[in-house]
């Protein structure tokens, strides 16, 4: 009695309640129908639980009921931002199983279209990343340029978003006559806009403050989580299937693997992931220019094939460097014209799994930026 008790006060002893916030499936910046269950301490993220599957379309089950060419339109719809790149590993796998050599011209056109689509994808990635940061204008500048690329695709394949263009043993249709000039003019335009975007968005001080030292992904964690593409390369990992396991004719071109090196912050932060995409667009431009130079304009775009595509009994895992990373298809053939099983290794699916690991301890606004920097497409996550 009469004793005064000294009250010890520490910040951590404050009885603060944690808030569970449900981000998505309808939210402006979850890039689709991703749902994140976020636990917040004030504004600091303490836990992130992604709930996916809102866009699940049973791709793998569908494949078992369809013939090999019929699968291609479904593959388009996996990662609808870069459908050309998506089709490639699949048709490459079947061509490998059947032992088909596609004509030289086809390889060049495939490379050019894949690289154009890579540019288009990176444009969207940077644009939406800027949009997450609140910069609306660069978004539209990049989308304007993307439309030019889509026009080329439309001229060749007839579709603007879902092409169904890479067919087993060749292409659906030949390119138009002024193809080379059109592509070169696009390359020029892309470079011009990139200069502007660098000034307007990427090297803006506010933007750098937002993305530097945020969502740091060390290289060993990236490998362990199976990250690929710009996410892995942003962590300083020179992992590019075009160089490491050259498929098609990528060994004929001279280009660099861009890696993040902590230009404004730590290696592996959001800025690095984004700047890798930005510089990769330049590398794609280089590849396109070389391909355009070497490409033969005459010749057929389709190899002679049996009427029904029946790969021999076997299994193959083909992978290609998607704009988002390694896209793999595990194709199991049972000798009929329908696949036994197709397992797709969705790039975004794997890249997204790293999100809970790298977003802990940052502010809620950073979580959105980290999610944007991982660049997912929910069509591929959920398949």
């Amino acid at each position, binding site marked *: 009695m009469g004793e005064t008790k000294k009250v010890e006060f520490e910040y951590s002893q404050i009885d603060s309640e944690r808030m569970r916030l449900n981000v998505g499936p309808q939210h402006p910046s979850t890039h689709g129908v991703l749902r994140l269950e976020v636990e917040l301490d004030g504004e600091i993220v303490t836990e992130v639980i992604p709930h996916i599957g809102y866009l699940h379309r049973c791709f793998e089950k569908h494949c078992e009921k369809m013939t090999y060419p019929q699968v291609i339109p479904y593959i388009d719809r996996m990662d609808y931002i870069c459908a050309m790149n998506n089709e490639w590993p699949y048709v490459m796998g079947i061509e490998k199983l059947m032992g088909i050599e596609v004509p030289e011209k086809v390889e060049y056109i495939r490379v050019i279209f894949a690289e154009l689509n890579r540019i288009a994808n990176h444009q969207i990635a940077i644009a939406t990343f800027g949009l*997450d940061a*609140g*910069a609306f*204008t660069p978004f539209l500048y990049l989308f304007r340029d993307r439309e030019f690329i889509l026009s080329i695709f439309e001229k060749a394949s007839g579709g603007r978003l879902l092409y169904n263009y890479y067919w087993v043993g060749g292409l659906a249709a030949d390119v138009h006559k002024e193809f080379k000039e059109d592509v070169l003019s696009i390359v020029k335009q892309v470079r011009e806009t990139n200069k502007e975007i660098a000034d307007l968005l990427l090297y803006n001080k506010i933007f750098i403050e*937002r993305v530097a030292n945020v969502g740091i992904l060390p290289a060993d964690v990236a490998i362990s989580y199976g990250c690929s593409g710009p996410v892995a390369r942003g962590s300083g990992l020179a992992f590019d299937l075009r160089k490491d396991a050259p498929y098609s004719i990528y060994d004929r071109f001279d280009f660099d693997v861009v890696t993040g090196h902590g230009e404004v912050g730590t290696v592996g932060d959001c800025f690095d992931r984004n700047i890798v995409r930005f510089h990769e667009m330049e590398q794609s431009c280089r590849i396109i220019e070389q391909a355009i130079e070497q490409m033969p304009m005459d010749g057929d775009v389709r190899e002679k094939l049996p009427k029904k595509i029946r790969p021999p009994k076997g299994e193959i895992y083909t992978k290609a460097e998607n704009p988002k990373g390694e896209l793999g298809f595990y194709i199991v053939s049972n000798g009929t014209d329908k696949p036994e099983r197709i397992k797709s290794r969705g790039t975004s699916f794997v890249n997204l799994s790293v999100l809970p690991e790298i977003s802990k301890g940052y502010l*809620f*606004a950073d979580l*959105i930026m980290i999610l944007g920097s991982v660049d997912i497409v929910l069509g591929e996550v959920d398949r």
Partner: protein
Amino acid sequence: MEQQILTLYDWIVKLSSSNLIALIVVITLPLVFLMVYALVAILGELKISAFIQERLGPMRTGPWGIIQPVAEVVKLLQKEDITPDAANKPLFNMAPFLMFTAAYAGFAVIPFSSHFVPAGINLGLFYIFAMGSLAVIGLVMGGWASNNKYSLLGALRSVAQIISYEIPAAIVILTIVVLASSMNLQVINANQGGWFWNWYLFGGPGTAWKLIIIPVTFSMFLLYLVASLAETNRTPFDIPEGESELVAGYHTEYSGMKFAMFFFAEYANMFVVAALISILFFGGWNSPFGDFMNGPIWGVFWFISKSFVFVFVQIWLRWTLPRLRVDQLMGVTWKVMTPIAFICFFAIGLWLMFN
């Protein structure tokens, strides 16, 4: 400023021989102005953002889409007015009106010209500042009463933001008050009469020695511009409603007319801060060129065009910049703006002492 000038109020009193009618006219005129201005500003925002982004903007309503804001207001009026079940209804319903009232009350002291100011009180600057702070209460009410986590986060962010940014803004205003030795906006305006080098942006009226303080006044202008952006929740300081994070921040749950109120309040606030910039730094209703096009009627023109320039600057900035993060926002005000504002204050004080 003791000379007898015929103000709008006096003129209407003389005309109608009724104080009440004069009062009503003087009160309603800014409201009418506000409504018309809001429509113009909404259209301006739509069109400027569109042209910056190489779009055309609204084109279907009227020639070049010029009645688009009217259509939007009509749409908002027609919309269902939803009050969430779990919301605190009295607060929820009151918040937008409080916001709008606060924004509109600021108009009471804004001098549109030398002969027209709704209320020429001596504490005009103080009053306008107090009214600006009142908006915070509306924000918190709206955000808290919505019973939505996004709204709550947005409201709390905006309180922290607005209160923090008031400090550099207040110091800058204080500096101007020191320079003008008055808080009456009319006096501050009248002080800057003559050519444009008499504006406080260029150190106010004085001898060539004022060149020394021009960098100080110029940085004060920048400070106030930035602080005013933060106070009106515009990009790059729109974190309370940061659409990519908080969906719509404190007005996530609002719809229909109540949302329109928030919307109007934002645009009204934009004008108030723009007007304040033009009054404090750009001579308000004074013509930039001495007696050329000067006078009570031209005053309205100069004042509104100067204010619109700053409304345009706000829109321009919004469509250029990304958004800051909440802790960086605080860092900017406490670590950068407040110290610099203090330095400016001392510099001006010293200069006045030795002048």
